Every structure is written in C-alpha cells, then in structure tokens.
C-alpha cells in the first residue's frame, strides 16, 4: 500500500491527545442533598426513552457539525487552481555546487532551493511527472520520472550540496534529451546562475524556467593556491595564495597558514573591490605535510575560505643509463636538475632499483623493472625488426603530446632507422613515411619509450630539441603523483599491489573502500568534498588535497539572467505558480475547534 501524503501522519499526534482527554478523570464535587429521589427521576427522564428527540439549540451540536464538515472538506483535498496544467512533464535541475552554500538567504541557498522544489512537488497534479536532476561538478539523475510525491520528497531529502564548481550545461543538455518528443514540458532550474559553461549551449525549444536563488553578499575567497620548492634549497618551500574579493567594497582579512594543523604564519590582507591579491609564505619544512590556508573573514560563503595543499620535499630521480658510450645522451640527462645518474655498460641483475632505465643500443635479455627508455633497441620480445631503413624522412610528430612539448623535428635528418613493427600496446608519436621512429606505450603498468634509431646516426643530438626531449622523456617516465586536485577531479596513482582494496578517508571522516584496477592503478573519483584525503593500502599511506579554487564559484552574486549561447537569455522568475492545497488549514481549524469544544464543554458544566 502506498500513501500519497504520508507526512499527514504527523496529525496522528492528535489521537493520543484525544485519548488523554478521555483519560482525564473528571473530578466531581461532592454535594450533600436532602434526597436523591428527584435526581434519580430527573436522570431517568433525561435518558433517551425514545429513539428520537426534538432537536434543540445546542452549541456543542453546532461545533461538532462544523468539525465534521471541516474534516470531510479536508479529506476531499480542496485546492486553489494555479496556472499549472495537468499531465505535465517537469524536469527539476537542482544546483548543488559550492556557491549554493552561501548563507545570504535563510539557512543557505541550497536549503532554500529544496524548500521551493518541495512546494513544487506539493503542487503537482496526480498525472504530472517529475524528474529530479542534481547539477554540481557532475550531473546526476536523483530521481527518474515519477508521479508519486512521496518518492520525490524522499529523493529530495537525500540531495546534498557539494563543494564542487557549477556545470549547468550538462544538466540542461540532459534535460533537453529527456524532454525530447514530449509535450507539456517544463524545465525548472533552481540555481544562483553561477556557471561558466553556458556560452556554448544554444537554447532551442526548451521551456526553461530559471528560479534564481540568493541575494548576493560580501565574499572573500581563495582562488589559487600552490606550493613550490626552492630550486636552491630543497627544504625551502613557498606557498602562493591568491585571494579574490567579489564584493564592491574593499575587504580585509587575516590569512593564516597552517602546516599539519600547526600555525606557521599569519598576515593581514586587504583586497580592493572586485580585485585579487596574492601573497607568498616562505617556510622551511623538511618533511612532507599539508599546508592549509585559512581566511578568518566571516563572509556568506565559507567553503572558499579554506584551501589545502600538499607540501612534498623535492626528491631526485634515479636514472640508470646502460650505454656503450653516448656523450650527448649522458650530457642531456645530466643537464636535467634533480636527476641522479648511474652509467653502466651492461645490464645486470644486481643493478640498483631506479626510477628510469635508459637502454642505449642495448638488447636486453629481460626487460628491466620500472619504466624504460629504449634507444635503438632491436630483436627483443617487444620489437622484431625486419631490417634497416635508410634515410627515413620525419614526416609527422604529435606536437600536443607532453613528450614533444617544445620539441621540433624540422631540421633533423636520420641516417638509418630500425624497420620494426610496434607491439599493440605502443603508439607512435614521431613517424617516418612508413615506419614509426619514436613510440610510447604502457604495458602492464610499465611505461616504455622507444626510439627506433640511434641518435648518433642523426643530426638530432646537435639540435636543441634533443635535450628538451630527453628532459620531457625523463619527466614522462617518472610520472609525479598529482596530490593537489580541484573538486571533482579524479585522483589516480599506481599501487604496488594489484587487485587490492584501498581505504580512502574523506575529509568528513567517512572511510571508503576502493579496489585497484587489474594493473594496480587506483582511480578515486569521489572527490566532491574539499579538504585532505588519506589513502591507505597496507602499510603505505599517502594524502592528497582537493580544493575549490574557483573564482567563478566564489563570485556569489546571483545572476538575474542566464545567458545561453549567443542569443539565449532566460530571466529569473520570482514566484512559483503551484496548486496550493488547503486541506491542512482545514485540519488545523478542526483541531482548534476540537480543543474549543472541550473547553466550552467544561466551561458550561463548571
């Protein structure tokens, strides 16, 4: 059995009240009388001797009749007819981005929006359908189309605001897809309009109603935060923070820096109206830890007053170069800062564990552990060369790939290259007309960079692009774990154990168990909260920080007009037309009348 309006069960409270009324023992006044004979006769006469009696004027009767009439009236659920029509398909998009946490309206914008949506649900006709969509950093269908108000209310109660930036575009596009080929469509957007991605959307026939939430107010927010190690001193770290003022008045605040929850710096900062100001904290921290910047200013949006960033001490990359002798390559590697290079002529089992192994014209019997750069390597289980190719021209290279950043192959000639087919997990990034010259790939968690020619057989070592490429290659082969993310960005890192369970502790203390992928990679995407996340896998622990750092989100001025694409404009509506049922009022009047009747009855007999 389902109930359309289970909230009405709250009126069940009146049942025990009525019982309590009857439980109250009436205290009778003791009266000595000459004789009870006449009283007995009086009582006998007043008791019903016939099934009907003459109807007399009695206020109690009138009150009870009114009471019953009101109860019946409430049961038939009367309502005022609004502008809504029956049989509608209503899409409700609820903004759950960080700016909805602004407290410029009672409670906050999000709770206000929920209240508005609740009213809309209450005003639905029985044959109306509604779908609830949450729009934050990600778009999520909270409730599929239904006419059952209790389900919609329950789903709405589960909606929570996040710390993520607003991405209204996806939600609007989704609603457009959902409402295609449907009639009587209404799309209601409950938002503050703070979204930067609406320019690309062309509003066509979508009946979009924008319910603006929020009044705007003074807000100071952290819009960027970064920590960098000094190039000279590895233990010297600088924390850069940019504070934005999104009000029309100059605002000042104390900015405090914490390292692992210990205050290590405090400054007063004044930011001009609609302006930003930067500050730098220099610290000497020899250990890894979390820097946290906090604005003390009490403004309407709290979420952007705090930012956290991981401070990691610099560590050199260990590179093992196996070569018969390549001065250019060795110099190029040594020229990269933060690299500890070991040069050997052959690959042995006793080689130390390093981050990157560079094989220069060496054919390994077994590929070494770790990431590998293989230069001019032939006849292995990965590559089966079919011969040499003389003077291959370089015809194409992927300039957008991070490996080839600032690398140009325009004036490079190669004398000969290995004519080899690539394994399936590799893809070329520099190609000749028929063969790949440089290829990259990842095999079972191991990154590999293959150069299909000897640089000494080319003009490349004489070009500036060579050391740049080597530097890029060492960077790519030694990927750094990104420990500072924006809200909604996934965190990924390679774990040693494959198919193991990793415990991630969220900023609010909740612990989430996440499995690693088949190749030992952890991808954690539930980063909708701002703060520090702790990952634990066996005895290994790592932390990463998630921040809002979004100037658009911090600018909490609610937009009166939503500009969609080049021409689309949706103005905010102020009032929501809904069918307002009146039965609750009648029920309340019934209750009051019941109480009045009780009082009246006792007053009359007192």
């Amino acid at each position, binding site marked *: 059995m389902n109930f359309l309006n289970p909230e009405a069960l709250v009126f069940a409270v009146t049942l025990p009240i009525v019982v309590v009324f009857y439980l109250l023992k*009436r*205290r*009778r*006044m*003791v*009266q*000595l*009388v*000459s*004789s*009870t*004979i*006449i*009283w*007995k*006769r*009086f*009582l006998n*006469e*007043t008791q019903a001797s016939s099934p009907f009696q003459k109807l007399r004027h009695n206020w109690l009767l009138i009150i009870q009749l009114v009471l019953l009439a009101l109860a019946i009236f409430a049961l038939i659920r009367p309502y005022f007819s609004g502008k809504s029509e029956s049989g509608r398909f209503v899409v409700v998009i609820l903004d759950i981005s960080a700016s909805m946490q602004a407290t410029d309206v009672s409670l906050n914008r999000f709770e206000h929006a929920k209240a508005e949506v609740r009213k809309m649900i209450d005003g639905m006709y029985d044959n109306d359908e509604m779908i609830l969509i949450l729009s934050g950093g990600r778009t999520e269908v909270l409730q599929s189309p239904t006419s059952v108000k209790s389900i919609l209310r329950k789903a709405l109660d589960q909606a929570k605001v996040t710390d993520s930036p607003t991405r209204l575009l996806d939600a609007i596009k989704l609603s457009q897809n959902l409402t295609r080929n449907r009639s009587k469509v209404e799309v209601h957007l409950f938002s503050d309009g703070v979204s930067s991605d609406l320019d690309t959307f062309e509003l066509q026939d979508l009946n979009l109603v924008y319910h603006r939430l929020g009044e705007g107010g003074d807000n100071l927010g952290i819009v960027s935060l970064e920590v960098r190690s000094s190039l000279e001193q590895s233990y010297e770290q600088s924390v850069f923070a940019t504070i934005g003022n999104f009000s029309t008045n100059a605002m000042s605040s104390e900015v405090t820096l914490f390292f692992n929850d210990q205050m290590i710096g405090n400054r007063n900062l004044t930011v001009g109206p609609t302006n930003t100001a930067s500050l730098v904290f220099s610290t000497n921290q020899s250990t890894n830890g979390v820097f946290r910047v906090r604005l003390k200013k009490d403004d309407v949006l709290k979420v952007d007053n705090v930012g956290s960033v991981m401070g990691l001490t610099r560590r050199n990359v260990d590179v093992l170069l196996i070569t018969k002798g390549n001065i250019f390559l060795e110099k190029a590697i040594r020229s990269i800062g933060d690299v500890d290079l070991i040069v050997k002529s052959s690959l042995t089992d006793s080689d130390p564990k390093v981050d990157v192994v560079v094989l220069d014209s060496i054919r390994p019997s077994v590929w070494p552990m770790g990431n590998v750069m293989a230069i001019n390597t032939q006849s292995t289980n990965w590559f089966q060369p079919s011969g040499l190719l003389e003077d291959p021209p370089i015809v194409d290279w992927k300039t957008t790939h991070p490996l080839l950043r600032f690398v140009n192959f325009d004036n490079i000639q190669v004398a000969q290259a290995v004519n080899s087919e690539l394994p399936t997990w590799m893809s070329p990034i520099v190609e000749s007309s028929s063969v790949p010259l440089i290829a990259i790939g990842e095999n079972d968690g191991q990154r590999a960079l293959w150069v299909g020619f000897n640089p000494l057989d080319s003009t490349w070592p004489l070009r500036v692009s060579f050391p740049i490429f080597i530097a890029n290659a060492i960077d790519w082969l030694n990927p750094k774990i990104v420990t500072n993310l924006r809200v909604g960005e996934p965190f990924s890192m390679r774990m040693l154990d494959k198919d193991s369970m990793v415990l991630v502790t969220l900023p609010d203390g909740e612990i989430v168990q996440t499995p690693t992928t088949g190749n030992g990679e952890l991808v954690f995407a539930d980063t909708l909260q701002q703060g520090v996340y702790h990952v634990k896998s066996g005895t290994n622990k790592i932390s990463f920080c998630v921040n809002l750092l979004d100037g658009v989100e911090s600018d909490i001025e609610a937009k009166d007009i939503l500009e969609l694409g080049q021409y689309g404009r949706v103005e905010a509506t102020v009032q929501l037309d809904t069918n307002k049922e009146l039965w609750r009022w009648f029920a309340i009047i019934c209750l009051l009348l019941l109480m009045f009747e009780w009082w009246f009855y006792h007053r*009359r*007999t*007192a």
Partner: protein
Amino acid sequence: MPINPEVMETLISNDLMKRLEQLQLLAQRRSKSSSKGERRSRARGYSVEFADYRNYVPGDDLRRIDWNLFGRLGRLFLKLYEEERELPVTIYLDASESMLFGEVTKFDFARQVAAAIGYVSLCGFDRVTVEPFPLVDSQKSLAGELRSVRGRHSSIRFFDNLNQLKVGGAGDLNQVLRLGSIKHRDPGIVVVLSDFLNLDGYEAGLRSLTNRGSDLHAVQILAEEELEPSTYGDLKLIDSETGAEQEVTFGKYRLKTYQMTVHKYCQRLRDFCQARGIHYQMAQSNTPIDDFLLKAMRSGGMWR
C-alpha cells in the same frame, strides 16, 4: 419547671397568634370522639342544641320530658339534645434528616405550621397530638408529652415541647402513617407535614389514613435548593438520609428539565391526594409563615 411564655414567640409571633385565635378548624364530619368537647357530634347528650324527640320509656330522666307536648298531645315524649364532643387533631411531623435543608429549614417551617394548627386546636378545646417521626430514643418522652394535649392553658408547654424537637435519622413515612391510623382510631383532623421525599413512596401511608374517615391534610414542604438548585458542574450527590451516592452532571441548561421533574413529582402527589379527598398544600420553606397560614391554609380548607 416553669416555662417562659416567650418560648411561644420563637415559633409564632404574638400578632399571628392573635389572628390564629380567631380561626376555627373546619371539620367536614361530625366528631365521633368519645370524650366531651365543644364539637357537634351525632351522639345525644346534655348540650343546649335540640336534636330530636323520642317516646318515653320507664327509667328515663323525668327532667327531660317535654311537658308542653304532653299537655297538647297527652303522650310522654322525651326531649333529646346533641352531645358535644372533642375533635382529635393529629399532626404527623416529619423530623427526618432530609428536613434539615433550606435557608429556613423545612423542619422549622413544618414545626411552625404544626404549632399554628395545634394552637388553633387548643383554642377550640380540641385534643392535639403531634407525632414526630422518626422517633429517636432521646425524644420519646418528648413525643409522649405531645400526645393528647388539650386546652389553651397547655399551649405554652405544647410550644415548648415542639421547640425541643430535633431532626435526625431516616423516616419511614408509610409505616408511621399506618401505625398512626391504628393508634388514633377516632376520626378527626389529620395533618401530614413532610417533604414526601421517601424512597418507598407515600401512597400506602396516606391510603391507610383515608380509611378512618378523618379530614386529611397533606402539606408538602420543599426547600428552595430542591426546587431550583444553584450548584452546577460534575456533582457527586449524597443522600442525607440513606447516604446513597448519585453522580450527575448538571448545568444551567438542564435546570428547566429538573424543575419539570420536580413539578411532575409534586403534581403526582397532588393528584393522589385529590383522588382521595385529601387536602394538599405545597409550600416552599422560605415562604413567610403568615402568608401560608392565613392564605394558603385557609383557602386549603384547614380553618376559617
């Protein structure tokens, strides 16, 4: 022990007493009492009222022969005169606990009425008996002194005795009247002063009195509180005589219904009395006694 004559005034004022002295009890039937008195009777005796003639028989008193008639007719006739006998007046006075209610208690009112009737009777040389009931042991001697009181000179003691009567206990009206009808066989005037609020009713008692050929008067005395109760709300009523409890919810809105019930109760008694030739009077205990005695009782055929 000498009795202060002022005791009479506690029951009946001097003015009222003087007016009562001018009244005479009305008896519809001739007295059948065996004692001499001042009331006409069917018996023949030696009064001045001529009654009849009868033939002379030897042994008759020669002084009573009508010699004028003997002169005219030559036959001896004896002249007969009416015998004047006393009129017994019996007053049943309800002294049960229920009579203790009212601003002027019902018992006080009844005692005043009894005193007035007794005084008129004593002035008329009739024999007065007051039967208070229920009779507690301490008052038995007092009740004895209230029996067969005669002569105006006895009125002070009569009043004093009446004054000393106390209220208490539960009275059984029917039994008292039944016993009274056996005890006082001579027909005369019988007055019942009561509220007639008895569990067992009053019919059997009154019926037993009617069999004796007396002139019966029933005076029902009710307190104002019984006619128009002023206490409202959820009440637990306790019967003063039996201690029985009765729960009732009473409000102003039910007053009329209650008064209707009282009226019906009284009307039933009135109808019962009328059907049996009993004079019925209803009095509220706070009615001025003068008005009741001189107007209501006179119009009710008690005296003239």
